[in-house]
């Protein structure tokens, strides 16, 4: 298991220059998630407009993988209809939990395919999923809110 297969250039780029970082208004739901094992944390807000994810803003403290993953999340879901965003989430989650056996779909995951290598490092899968699980939680609440 090669280090570079984990720390892809794309991941390190997102880590150093995260997209959409910071907490912004307006938002319908804010959640705080923790990785209990290491203490990594994220506060994440979702703003929905007419069934579309119009913003995902966040303040995260964590390792390169978890930070880069939040940045990629922002890229992939902002501007998408909620249902489609949740499909992207399903694909990303399937890739992460696939133990390296799941083929990544570049059409859907774009930069997210750089995380394929993470699936081979079981201890890091949680890092990659932290922001995505927070997004799922926040979106569910936001949808309920508006229902």
């Amino acid at each position, binding site marked *: 298991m090669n280090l570079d297969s984990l720390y892809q250039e794309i991941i390190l780029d997102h880590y150093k220059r995260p997209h959409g970082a910071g907490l912004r208004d307006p938002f319908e739901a804010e959640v705080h998630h*923790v990785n*209990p*094992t290491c*203490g990594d944390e994220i506060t994440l807000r979702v703003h929905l407009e007419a069934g579309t994810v119009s913003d995902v803003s966040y303040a995260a403290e964590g390792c390169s993988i978890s930070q880069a993953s939040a940045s990629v999340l922002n890229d992939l879901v902002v501007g998408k209809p909620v249902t489609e965003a949740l499909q992207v989430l399903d694909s990303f989650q399937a890739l992460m939990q696939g133990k390296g056996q799941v083929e990544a779909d570049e059409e859907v995951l774009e930069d997210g395919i750089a995380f394929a290598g993470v699936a081979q*490092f*079981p*201890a*890091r899968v949680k890092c990659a999923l932290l922001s995505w699980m927070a997004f799922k939680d926040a979106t569910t609440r936001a949808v309920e809110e508006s229902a």
Partner: protein
Amino acid sequence: MTITAAGVDYDVLKVREDFPILGRTVANGLPLVYLDSANTSQKPRQVVEAIERHYLEHNANVARAMHTLGAEATEAFEGGRTRIAEFIGAPSRDEVVFAKNASEALNLVARVLADAGRLGADREVVITEMEHHSNIVPWQLATERTGATLRWFGVTDDGRLDLDGIEQLITERTAVVSLTWVSNMLGTVNPLDVVIRRAHEVGALVVVDASQAVPQMPVDVASLGADFVVFTGHKMVGPTGIGVLWGRYDVLAELPPFLGGGEMIETVTMERSTFAPPPARFEAGTPPIAQSVGLGAAADYLDALGMENIAAHEHAITAYALGRLQEIDGLRVVGPQTAEERGGAVSFTLGDIHPHDVAQVLDSRGIAVRAGHHCAKPAHRRFGVQSTTRASFYLYTTEAEIDALVEGLVATQKYFGG
């Protein structure tokens, strides 16, 4: 002896080769006849070697470690959980909580239900008169602390659960019904379906003590329908130091933690903590890592033999033993007299020879049985005896061993009678 169930041969002599201890001699060179498996089972080489391999090749702490060894140890430990979930037909591996033994698992349920306020002064807990102390004392302690009332099913003269009056016993006031599946003293297999149906009718939770069931018969918790099922590693050819609490996820998810510390947290400040979801919430501190590996290997071992075959063997050997024991003058089996709906533990009295003395004479002949109250004092009292001798059988027990027991009992009568 060869037993055939579902068309598969069960070769007990071949099985015995996996258990080096069964080749041992005791009492000045006599071969060991181990008839105390309801107390603890023997361990096959496969289980012991899995534990050894884990310690010497993959040992690390779990969950917390980011390194290769930690990942291996975590996979091995969590693999044990997955294996046990499969073994008992749990809908989700997150429903399998590891405890140190069955007793802790029962106490866990009693404590957290009490802490959750489910056992208030107006509530009742129902157990039975045939329970092991480990399914009596936790409920006594819990109801005493909360002011709830403890009630119980009686036992009929032939050692069956007395279901008369079940509707008056299990009522809207009942918070929990906790009962054994297979009695470790009487051998009785209880009609769980009837009890679970009534309990769920009134909204009570059902806890099943399956300590003597899981080792002996195929178990599928999903179709059983109970809310909690408890069992213990060392009685199912697994290691000591591990027990299992299976709980329905939605029930577990609503309960507060049992012990605090280690990986059961979500976040901790000096002022307060929040807790992880099940099963982690109920597993404080470094878990029984090597023991989970051993228990997984035990499940593998049992499945390789086939639980159907093991159950068929247990039934056959119990039937044989009941028949042969009842040939002995003055021997009285306490519990069901036939092998129907009955597990492989047979308790008996032998005239007025005290069970200690029976066990001692048998031991001098290499035969290991248990003498005493078998942690079931109320069940003994129910039958007017202070103690009994118990012979119990398992997947490695042979008819020849039963014959040796019978001879030994006859010799005991001579020793103390003459």
